């Protein structure tokens, strides 16, 4: 039955911009910090204070707008959105309604083999709010204005997505663009990228849209996927029961995997938007747009082509590495030092991804330097350490960005290439394992492995496995 219905989804995505200072004052945007330490009269809404626009915010917004094929609004303005809440120190948020910075763009997404354009309705700049902390013990609420005035852009798509997969592909694409531009780190967990999902359903083939709901509080791709599935199902059931979908805002509870109604359209607040009189219109010249275009870094598609050509790595590798700006930057920087692209790509694709997954981290969280990865590759390549030791050392590099040369030295992890010592050990092992020797001589190749293993064990993994192999074969001829 549910196959008869098509899901229609549009997204409102908030992206926190990577400026060092807030949008309307000089306070730091750094995450964390003791409550109300990154504040001043402006971002705490003190009487008499006035906002002054941070130009970098406009430049980042322009860069994202251009990268998503939007038209830049060359005379754009800020507006006030009025609503009362203590996290909003002035009881109005400075945002854009009438003349947003960018409009009418699109991004291309790929789901399976299918390519598709998701249109962007508009993109506007605004300030973030503070954070309320409810103190259960004291039965009071406290407010921290460190986040108040952190710059955001809100990217509003057209209702062009039809499945959770398309939504995730769209979000990944936006994230990649913002990261490549350096406009944002787009970490969902820390809230530097947030998505509200507008969803409706309609009979397949229908041309009219159904009534939509808006879902908030979606903090991970998993939550978004679950929320979409859940909401689609909820709406289908309502319609099948002959009921109506009510236009409302719903809050997703990730623990209960259920959304509940926050407010209906009737309760929707009238924000009484009007032009912000404390800020002058922003006039964006053709030259300024050109300057931003010229500064635009290489985006993913350009990188992909270049990686295959210049580094001669397979398409598959290039796709994974260019998946995030962090990975791509690390790859390029490491190759610049050791010039072994395939080896670098292997370390990034296999071990790095494994450790990130194990730690529940994103590539943006990588802390190790290209220098130390390059050193590790050189050590392994020169045979100074063997591959299992290399993996062990890499874990240290990943966790603490240790200098591999020093670490190997300090922990005596160098491969033992001393033939005499190995021969002595081999003789002992051969003498102690007549059965295995017999089996090997009788044609059982596997038996040699057991002997190699014993030698490696005795050498605490530091022996050169190739050398041990050859040595045994020669001795058992």
């Amino acid at each position, binding site marked *: 039955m549910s196959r008869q219905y098509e899901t229609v989804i549009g997204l409102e995505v908030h992206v926190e911009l990577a400026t060092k200072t807030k949008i309307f004052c000089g306070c730091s945007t750094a995450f964390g910090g003791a409550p109300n330490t990154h504040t001043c009269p402006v971002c*705490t809404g*003190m*009487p*008499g204070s006035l906002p002054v*626009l941070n130009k970098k915010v406009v430049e980042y917004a322009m860069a994202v707008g251009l990268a998503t094929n939007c038209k830049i609004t060359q005379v754009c303005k800020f507006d006030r959105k*009025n609503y009362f809440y203590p996290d909003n120190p002035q009881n109005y948020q400075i945002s854009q309604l009438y003349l947003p910075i960018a409009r009418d763009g699109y991004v291309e997404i790929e789901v399976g083999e299918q390519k598709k354009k998701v249109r962007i309705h508009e993109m506007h700049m605004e300030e973030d709010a503070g954070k309320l902390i409810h103190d259960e013990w004291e039965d009071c609420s406290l407010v921290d204005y460190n986040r108040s005035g952190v710059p955001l852009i809100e990217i509003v798509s057209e209702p062009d997505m039809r499945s959770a997969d398309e939504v995730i592909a769209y979000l990944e694409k936006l994230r990649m663009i913002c990261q490549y531009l350096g406009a944002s780190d787009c970490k969902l967990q820390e809230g530097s990228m947030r998505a509200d999902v507008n969803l409706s359903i309609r009979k397949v083939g229908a041309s009219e849209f159904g009534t939509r709901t808006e879902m908030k509080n979606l903090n991970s791709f998993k939550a978004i996927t679950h929320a979409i599935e859940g909401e689609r199902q909820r709406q289908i059931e309502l319609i099948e029961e002959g009921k109506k979908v009510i236009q409302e805002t719903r809050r997703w509870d990730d623990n209960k995997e259920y959304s509940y109604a926050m407010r209906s359209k009737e309760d929707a607040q009238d924000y009484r938007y009007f032009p912000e009189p404390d800020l002058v219109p922003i006039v964006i010249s053709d030259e300024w747009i050109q300057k931003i275009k010229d500064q635009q870094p290489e985006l993913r598609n350009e990188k992909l082509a270049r990686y295959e050509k210049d580094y001669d790595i397979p398409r598959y590798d290039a796709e994974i590495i260019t998946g995030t700006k962090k990975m791509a930057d690390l790859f390029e920087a490491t190759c610049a030092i050791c010039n072994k692209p395939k080896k670098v790509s292997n370390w990034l694709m296999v071990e790095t991804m494994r450790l990130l997954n194990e730690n529940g981290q994103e590539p943006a969280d990588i802390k190790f330097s290209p220098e130390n990865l390059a050193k590790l590759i050189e050590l392994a390549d020169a045979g100074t350490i063997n591959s299992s030791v290399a993996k062990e050392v890499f874990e240290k590099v990943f966790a603490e960005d240790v200098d591999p040369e020093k670490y190997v030295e300090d922990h005596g992890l160098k491969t033992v290439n001393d033939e005499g010592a190995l021969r002595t050990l081999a003789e002992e092992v051969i003498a102690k394992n007549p059965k295995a020797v017999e089996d090997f001589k009788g044609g059982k190749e596997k038996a040699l492995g057991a002997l190699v293993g014993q030698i490696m064990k005795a050498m605490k993994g530091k022996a050169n496995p190739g050398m041990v192999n050859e040595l045994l074969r020669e001795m058992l001829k």
Partner: protein
Amino acid sequence: MDLKSLTAVELGKKIQAKEVTVKEAVEACFTQIDKVEKEVNSFVSLQKEAALKRAEEVQKLIDDGTLTGPLAGVPVAIKDNMCTEGVTTTCSSKILSNFVPTFSAEAVLNLEKAGAVVIGKTNMDEFAMGSTTETSYYGETKNPWNLEHVPGGSSGGSCAAVAALEVPYALGSDTGGSIRQPSSYCGIVGIKPTYGTVSRYGLIAYGSSLDQIGPVARDVTDCATVLETIASHDAKDSTSVERQDTDFTSALVNDVKGMKIGIPKDYFGEGLDEEVKKPILEAAEVLKNAGAEIEEFDLGLVKYAIPAYYVIASAEASSNLSRFDGVKYGYRTKDYEELHQMYKKTRSEGFGPEVKRRIMLGSFVLSSGYYDAYYLKALRTKALIKKAFDSAFAKYDMILAPAAPTTAPKLGSSLSDPIKMYLGDIYTISVNLAGLPGISIPVGQDAKGLPVGMQLIGDCFQEKKLFQAAYTYECLTEKKWVSMYDKTEAAGKEEA
């Protein structure tokens, strides 16, 4: 020496000449304040101790030659909607009764850099909303010419303090006439400069797109001197303008030959009190006899200015005043159960009726469904009014007009009929809508002896022309006193 009757520049000269100490200048203010403040009520708060301490510091800087400017050591009063670091700033509202700013307004800082000594914060209509200074939570200010009359508003406290000789000059703010109208009612000189000339940083906003700070003083020279000192390009105020022509005192020249002055017929018709009209037209004659070319013309759109102004100013105010909610500073209601009740009770108890009226009006005109019909239409009207002025200034150097249709009304006669009170702003508010400079200078009195002010309106950035014409008028006419306090003093001297 009668220090209190000296203008700011006269007093500053005596201080530089070491004929008067800064302490003596400050003490002279407080002596007069002790004498008249109970009657006039110009101030919300006085900072005597801090002023005397500051006087010592300034004196040192004058003595060692650091401060040589005309305002060094001269006392000043500040309207209580300008932030003063460490000094309660109330906007004459209960809701800010305990608010102590952490920084000073840029205009105040500019004065302090020039060696000014702040002696107190002056009374005003609550949040600058009103034309009589009767909407103050701290009691009404009275007109120093006749205590049964209002001083005008909203900068009524600043103007009354200057007229009552409590301080040589003061800062006011003007959103729809709040400097020029009380200056006119109090018989002193006040100028609202071109929008963007004086930084609004630290001025607690009423109508952000209309608010400007300006001086009120006893003569044109003082006004030019003070404006020259407070005008600055401030990176903290995005609407602040970078101007190279703020040497306003250079325009204090006794000459109006060839100056073209337009008199808008629409400003002199119905509604203008004959007793106001007469001295203003006489003043025009004075300028004409001095060589100015005077011509009547139709400005047009006059009747649309008041509705446009009240829509725009109230809309901005409804948003500007939403931060006063009891959460972060200021008054908070005593008993409440939850957040929204706290908001409602705090604001219901904290704001007076005129402020509530404008918040409601402003919220209404911004509401969805009404925005286009009211707010957008008002913005279009504003643009048309600016155009009408533009074409006037294509022909004239300035416009000569009344500052208010009547002289100061009696206390208690205005608030009962707010519409009538709003209509009293007819000659001043277009100037704010168009962002123009306007100066009010005393030109006579009505039969009751209440002062009449004439307003000169210039094109954007043409304050110098206004100063020149006003200065010329001042040079060609004789002024006897600035209020009954001055008059009493003068009479006493004659008797002696």
